[in-house]
């Protein structure tokens, strides 16, 4: 008999929670279950049309004629949230786009133009706050500190706008992985407040409305299609709220940001046509750890690849990067693996072998979170490395390393090495877990 413990437990009407105010919040929310009866055998699960009508009704009811500000970045989450809220609130919705200074080349203006033209026709106010954000993150190099400062500045800017417009509500495109990762302490997403114990009404003067909070990226896209968003918007490449800030690994400098903007453009142009779910560049200083415990990584790499040790070199970057191991945040090391040219040429075409290299290293070293494979280097070049990241994922909760053809990686590396200050180009070979999609 299995059920040995039959001691009566007092019935409780309210779910107790474990000290985290958000848990109750999220638990009491029904996970957008379509109300039943009309489920057909073919279309099970999520229904964009019924989701939309339920959410617009809910927004109308909550705001009841009062004004709301909407934070829109041009990404699919915030665009879908804004269009949905526009349908519910009409002129009572004030969409604003914050230029954080960490967006891509010309992105703020392009996004504003795109949103204001047909078929959307959403007039968006562009707020130039680049200076404010840069000032806020000055002198910080730890990932969570950067993210926290970004979040604080983000909401201060919105607070000012909301106060000016007399808005009692903020509509934003938070989706499930945002609050899940923040709540789990994996990383602080810029658009999550209650989960970290911040009361938005007391702190910023508005209530937060998150119509998409129970959805994953692929479901948001299907809502976008239901809303007749143009295909390039519904299918837009994801871009994190803090943008290039979290791809500038460690301290932010003008040089790193400039290099990153150029490298981002090169990677997006080359990998865009290959339809991966996410692809981008990150930049990191070539400062390497002298910790003797990392010396073994060279032998471990050689063993995992079946190569003599003298054909392998490993460099562990000083600056830490974000990962997740066993459901716990791991702010650990990034190991760069370099092979001699002929071996590199052979292994570059063998992504499965590189996957085994990655897991062999990460399972041996607790402090190691991610592994990157050197694609090309330039002798006597600058002090920065660029890491290319490309993954396939449905919902960003797990991610597989994209099998980018080696020839393509080499071509991209060639162009990136033309950027001043860059001496090495790596390809990140870490899935999520133990990595995350972004580096910070």
């Amino acid at each position, binding site marked *: 008999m299995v059920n040995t413990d039959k001691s009566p437990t007092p019935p409780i009407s309210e*779910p107790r929670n474990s000290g985290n105010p958000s848990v109750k919040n999220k638990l009491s929310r029904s996970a957008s279950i379509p109300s039943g009866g009309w489920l057909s055998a073919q279309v099970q699960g999520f229904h964009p049309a019924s989701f939309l009508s339920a959410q617009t009704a809910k927004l109308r009811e909550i705001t009841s004629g009062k004004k709301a500000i909407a934070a829109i970045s041009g990404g699919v989450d915030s665009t879908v949230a804004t269009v949905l809220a526009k349908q519910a609130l009409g002129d009572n919705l004030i969409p604003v786009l914050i230029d954080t200074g960490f967006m891509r080349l010309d992105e703020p203006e392009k996004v504003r133009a795109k949103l204001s033209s047909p078929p959307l026709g959403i007039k968006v106010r562009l707020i130039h706050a680049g200076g404010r954000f840069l000032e806020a993150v000055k002198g910080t190099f730890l990932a969570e500190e950067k993210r926290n400062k970004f979040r604080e500045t983000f909401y201060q800017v919105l607070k000012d706008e909301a106060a000016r417009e007399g808005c009692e509500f903020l509509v934003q495109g938070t989706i499930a992985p945002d609050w899940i990762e923040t709540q789990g302490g994996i990383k602080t997403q810029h658009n999550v407040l209650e989960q970290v114990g911040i009361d938005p009404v007391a702190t910023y003067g508005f209530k937060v409305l998150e119509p998409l909070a129970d959805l994953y990226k692929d479901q948001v896209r299907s809502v976008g299609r239901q809303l007749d968003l143009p295909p390039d918007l519904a299918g837009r490449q994801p871009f994190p709220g803090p943008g290039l800030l979290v791809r500038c690994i460690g301290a932010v400098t003008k040089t790193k940001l400039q290099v990153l903007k150029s490298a981002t453009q090169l990677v997006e142009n080359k990998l865009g046509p290959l339809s991966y779910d996410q692809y981008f560049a990150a930049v990191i200083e070539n400062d390497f750890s002298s910790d003797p415990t990392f010396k073994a990584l060279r032998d471990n790499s050689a063993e995992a690849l079946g190569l003599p040790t003298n054909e392998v070199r490993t460099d562990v970057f000083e600056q830490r990067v974000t990962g997740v191991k066993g459901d716990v945040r791991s702010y650990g090391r990034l190991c760069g693996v370099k092979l001699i040219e002929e071996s590199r040429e052979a292994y570059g075409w063998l992504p499965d072998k590189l996957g085994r290299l990655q897991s062999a290293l990460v399972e041996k070293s607790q402090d190691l979170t991610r592994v990157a494979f050197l694609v090309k280097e330039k002798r006597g070049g600058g002090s920065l490395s660029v890491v290319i990241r490309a993954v396939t994922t449905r919902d960003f909760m797990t991610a597989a390393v994209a099998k980018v053809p080696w020839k393509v990686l080499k071509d991209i590396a060639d162009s990136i090495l033309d950027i001043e200050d860059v001496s090495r180009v790596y390809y990140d070979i870490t899935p999520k877990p133990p990595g995350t999609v972004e580096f910070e």
Partner: protein
Amino acid sequence: MTFVPVVYVKGQYNHLITRSLQDLGIESKLLPSSTTPEELERLKADGLVMGGGPQSVRQLENLPRELADAVQLIRGVTLPMLCICVTHQLLAKAFGGETDIAKKPEYGPVEISVDSEDTILTGVGPSFTAWESHTDEVVKSPPGFHLLAHSDNCTAQAMRHENGRIFGVQFHPEVSHTSKGSEIFRNFLQTVRQ
């Protein structure tokens, strides 16, 4: 409609389990682990899935609140139940098995070898790729449980109680990268509906 709630114990993928179940056309939502078997009855639950989490359960004493509650629930529930990752380890501990820190932790893709295409693993053999994220593992399965699958690094990837209604898996059937995840949930729902 069939209703299978998911017990939240702070794991990244707990909410994703509700989605996996909803995608199979049944009703699901997150519940706290303080939910009692009586409440489950009142909610007309047909089965139960226990999620994963970041904790270690090597010692049953001093468990964090949500897992202390989860042990009560695991022992008290009479519904068909599937325990995932940390609650798979908790299930083992609750019924007299042992867990320990894994010699080789598993993060990301892992090849699962199916030893017995039994109940929840019907039709998924001889092997499939599953995604994992665990530092501890079950090293001794509890009395009354049969091991159903293993990987190179871990002997207890899946287990079933001899009553045929309680299951544990170390891997994550709820993440989209696990190749046979929805088959495993479908198989579990088969048991739920019996």
